[in-house]
């Protein structure tokens, strides 16, 4: 589909990839950090405030500083991706720790008592039971990433944000509006997908009422 002289499909695909991949990578990074914070009060005292502080860094500043820190080309989409990974990790470390805290002690005690080793306990019992709380965290991170990815347009990284910046320069409000509405719709669609995935992974949560 073309509109305003742009290939919209391409912008949408780029927007989705730039937002989704960092959320997934961020999740993979946040899980072990969150587990560490759950296990060790000392680690938690450092990790949780630190991740909170990371989230307060302005996105544009990160996008500009990352090439200096890691040596990526100044206009690379990687800078936007890494920025979003940082935000995702910042949001999810606390989520993961709290999701693991929410697993009842009787359940983890029983798991240890029947002979689970630490890895099996984490993958087989704690992580599945953390899914409901974790899903809530991922949804916030996802909505945030789908909105922040538009900032990349300022440094020339293609997304629906491109319609906003270029529409602004061309004094073309309909194009700006299309960019805004498009990114909101994408954020909602993926929010719904996370919600659906979270529900699909936790059939036992709704079983209470279904006796």
């Amino acid at each position: 589909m073309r509109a305003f002289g742009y290939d919209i499909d391409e912008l949408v695909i780029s927007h989705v990839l730039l937002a989704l991949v960092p959320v997934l990578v961020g999740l993979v990074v946040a899980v072990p950090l969150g587990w560490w914070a759950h296990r060790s009060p000392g680690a938690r005292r450092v990790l949780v405030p630190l991740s909170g502080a990371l989230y307060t860094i302005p996105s544009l500043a990160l996008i500009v500083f990352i090439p200096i820190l890691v040596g990526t080309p100044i206009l690379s989409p990687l800078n936007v991706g890494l920025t979003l990974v940082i935000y995702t990790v910042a949001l999810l470390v606390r989520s993961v720790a709290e999701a693991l805290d929410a697993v009842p002690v009787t359940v983890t005690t029983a798991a240890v008592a029947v002979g689970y080793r630490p890895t099996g306990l984490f993958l087989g019992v704690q992580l599945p039971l953390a899914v409901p709380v974790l899903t809530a965290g991922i949804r916030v991170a996802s909505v945030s990433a789908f909105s922040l990815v538009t900032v990349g347009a300022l440094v020339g990284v293609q997304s629906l944000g491109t319609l906003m910046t270029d529409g602004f320069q061309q004094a073309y409000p309909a194009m700006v509006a299309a960019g805004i509405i498009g990114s909101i719709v994408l954020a909602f669609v993926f929010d719904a997908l996370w919600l659906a995935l979270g529900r699909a992974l936790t059939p036992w949560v709704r079983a209470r009422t279904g006796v």
Partner: protein
Amino acid sequence: MIEFRDVGKRFADGTVGLESLSLTAREGEITVLVGPSGCGKTTSLRTVNRMVEPTSGSVLLAGKDVAEGDPALLRRGIGYVIQQAGLFPHRRVLDNVATVPVLQGLPRKEARARAAEVLERVGLDATMAQRWPAQLSGGQQQRVGVARALAGDAPVLLMDEPFSAVDPVVRVELQDELLRLQADLGKTILFVTHDIDEAIRLGDRVAVLRVGGRLAQFAPPDELLAHPADEFVSGFVGRDRGYRRLGFVPATALHLTELPTRADANGDSGVPGEWTVLLDGAERPAAWLGPDGVRHELGSVYVTEGGAEGVTAASEAAGTLRGALDAALSSPAGRGVAVDREGRFRGGVAPDDVLALLRPDPVR
């Protein structure tokens, strides 16, 4: 056999969980650890499967020090039932029970088949197998917890206040169920509770612990009731220990009295001026007929010998002075009705005869 040898546990913060515990839980018996909170009963239980590592002494399981080898493998060979069941909420009942066989390396299909057998054994029907734990009542969850502990086919079971979170009626049901299972399976069970009644009901031997895990007394229940070692034990065992002890005193010396009977369950004419027992066609007592010709309920009957079908209050007290005295006291006629294990009328129980057996001390 589980053997505690001078087991001590001092926690990192300096509190003493266990001073120095030495006791042996015999093969095929239920050994109960009972005591007030803070007496270290759960701590001592957990030293057996190394969820707590003792700071001194050792625990031997079938003659082998549990400290040697892999704790995860040790735990897979010991059934564990926790308070509030501790079921995995994200696994269906069947898969909860199949947990240990799966960990032991059994293919999932065989593990589930084994789980289904065990579920049946603890009295849960097949429709329960596909439910989520949250869809079960507290009592059912606890049965699943017991099933999960049995599914690994471990010879040893550790039970940590398994029935304390359910209401008293269900608790008694679960206790009966455990006694029934134990009669079949003959496991070596270490059972922790703070409830002395439960301890006396279930234990072959009962260890009373005081704060700090010091053993106050370790004895079979009747001895605990008859001869508490000190004031702490007698205080813990409670005021009516004399009456409860009757449940452990055999009534073999009790002679039954003659009672007038009529072989007509619905009859309305008895022996004039006397209480008469109405019997049905199978010689089973149906009701009392008062001297005034009015029917009365039987009250509790005294079963003269143990081994009656099903565990009921009457069969539990069967053949003991407690059953006999209860029958005598609950009868409207001032005398109890005694039956054999098939429920056939055997005679009457006079309260005085029961009391005579208690004077001065018939047991020892």
